[in-house]
């Protein structure tokens, strides 16, 4: 039987400092992580610690390893590969919570770069996208809790062929781009021309079906087995095939539908039995998934059919419709296993609605899905200059050079700037400007995001982690935490001067044993 899903999103951001070289950027990125860990409480409202007097002390706390910090809302901010800021949301029980914390992370980073920019006198920008346009990708990963049995089947790389649940999962993630892609101009890792617009930022970067690697030879199924929990009960499935989303709705559909499909696989809801005859497969399987990934990403007509393994073919919409149909059937059967707070029903509704609109009126999604919003911006810009996609290299546009000189560039270059500026997480970023003008359909309120800046989710172990960090910060603020104290916090453990508190169950949120632990360390 399926278990409820813990959902988490890890996002690597593009960090850009105007006029700095790589080494200088790397130094400043370290400072960004340090400041985010130390002072975001001060820079945003409701300061808890005084940055100047406590920074040295706080540095001695290993809050989330040497390269990062856990924050009082339970999320982790850290440095990846020298100058990529990365944030992991806390463990969330619903897709909506995962999106709330994903958006809260943007707000926290933006507050810190505003402060850092004025400190160093440089323009700093952070972009939430996944590709530099030169064949380099930085990621958005998702995490879902699974039973060990299902997890081990999903990551099994000992056979020559994919097993059934691997094949079904791959068909799902390959076709979901049409709802959750972030859109990109150009094609990377290929000899093709770069003047096309495609649905996904990351489709160009996947080369194999199963592997533990993430930086090269990227797989559709990542076999990493790092549970950060009691491994006999919980495993963490690490999904690396996905784009970072600015759109709340794309982010919600991405995590919400994936959590549902994984639950269906756990429940083995893949076959049906017709009068006790042989089992009949309910879900599609792709015959060439890597080829289909790229084909779907480059087909904005949604008409292209990709090959299935039963000598038939179907469109990405058709494949997703089958998943959505079976998911609705699955939920009718298993509904009672889920508590009232689940948002499964809402995800199913939006999933169906989105597929219906993709089929009948895709333009109506130009206010909610990332790649559709971007497409409408590009087309509006082309219209402004009386140009079109087939003239993007020949239509010339006047623009200002770095020293204020007037330059003429192909309109394609300006479209690429729109592409990147859309992902700028500051209020000046194009997506955020559209939000502030009420042009984007949202699923969250600003209050929901603001409350997640300081508060962990209440229904997972992130609550314990967040509460403990808040306790430490309060103690430091009252000068009651000597700098000699050793404090280590990890995803599943708290270590305070040798007293360990283990959090092997990610669903346990506020146990009496944590209260006992807190009482013990209160006066030590």
């Amino acid at each position: 039987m399926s278990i409820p899903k813990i959902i988490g999103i890890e996002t690597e951001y593009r960090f850009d400092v105007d006029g700095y070289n790589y080494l200088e950027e790397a130094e400043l990125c370290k400072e960004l992580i340090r400041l985010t860990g130390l002072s975001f409480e001060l820079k945003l409202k409701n300061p808890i610690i005084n940055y100047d007097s406590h920074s040295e002390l706080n540095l001695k706390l290993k809050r989330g390893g040497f390269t990062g910090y856990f924050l009082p809302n339970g999320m982790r901010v850290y440095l990846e590969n020298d100058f990529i800021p990365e944030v992991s949301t806390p463990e969330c029980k619903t897709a909506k919570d995962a999106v709330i914390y994903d958006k809260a992370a943007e707000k926290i980073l933006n507050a810190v770069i505003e402060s850092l920019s004025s400190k160093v006198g440089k323009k700093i920008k952070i972009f939430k996208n996944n590709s530099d346009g030169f064949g380099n990708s930085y990621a958005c990963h998702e995490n879902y809790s699974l039973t060990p049995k299902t997890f081990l089947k999903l990551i099994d790389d000992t056979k020559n062929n994919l097993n059934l649940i691997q094949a079904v999962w791959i068909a799902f993630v390959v076709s979901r781009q049409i709802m959750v892609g972030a859109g990109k101009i150009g094609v990377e890792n290929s000899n093709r021309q770069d003047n096309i617009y495609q649905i996904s930022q990351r489709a160009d970067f996947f080369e194999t079906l199963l592997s533990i690697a993430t930086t090269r030879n990227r797989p559709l199924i990542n076999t990493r087995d790092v549970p950060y929990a009691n491994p006999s009960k919980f495993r963490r499935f690490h999904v690396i095939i996905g784009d970072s989303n600015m759109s709340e709705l794309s982010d919600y559909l991405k995590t919400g539908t994936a959590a549902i499909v994984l639950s269906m696989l756990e429940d083995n809801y893949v076959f049906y039995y017709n009068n006790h005859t042989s089992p009949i497969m309910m879900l599609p399987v792709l015959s060439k998934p890597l080829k289909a990934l790229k084909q779907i990403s480059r087909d904005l007509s949604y008409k292209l059919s990709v090959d299935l393994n039963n000598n038939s073919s179907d469109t990405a919409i058709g494949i997703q419709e089958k998943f959505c149909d079976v998911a609705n059937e699955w939920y009718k059967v298993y509904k009672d296993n889920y508590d009232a707070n689940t948002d499964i029903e809402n995800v199913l509704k939006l999933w169906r609605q989105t597929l219906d609109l993709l089929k009948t009126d895709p333009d109506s999604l130009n206010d909610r899905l990332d790649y559709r919003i971007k497409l409408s911006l590009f087309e509006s810009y082309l219209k402004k200059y009386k140009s079109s996609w087939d003239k993007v290299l020949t239509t010339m546009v006047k623009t200002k050079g770095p020293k204020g000189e007037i330059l003429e560039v192909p309109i394609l270059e300006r479209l690429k700037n729109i592409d990147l500026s859309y992902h700028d997480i500051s209020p000046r970023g194009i997506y955020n400007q559209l939000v502030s003008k009420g042009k984007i359909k949202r699923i969250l309120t600003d209050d929901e995001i603001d409350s997640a800046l300081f508060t962990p989710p209440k229904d997972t172990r992130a609550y314990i982690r967040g509460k403990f960090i808040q306790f430490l910060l309060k103690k430091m603020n009252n000068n009651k935490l000597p700098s000699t104290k050793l404090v280590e916090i990890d995803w599943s453990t708290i270590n305070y001067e040798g007293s360990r508190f283990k959090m092997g169950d990610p669903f346990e949120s506020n146990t009496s044993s944590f209260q006992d632990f807190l009482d013990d360390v209160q006066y030590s």
Partner: protein
Amino acid sequence: MSQEKKQKQFYREEDNKQKQNNKQNKENMIDDLIDDLEDVLNETEERRKVPRKGGE
């Protein structure tokens, strides 16, 4: 009203709102939607051309 009817009504209302919004969006040119559009684009002009290190 049954749950199914309520749901249909909800979808109908949402669709109408959407059609209205979509019509407005089509009428809006990108310059009406984004403040200082060309300046915003100039801000990414130089940095966009610098390759980044990959992550993961």
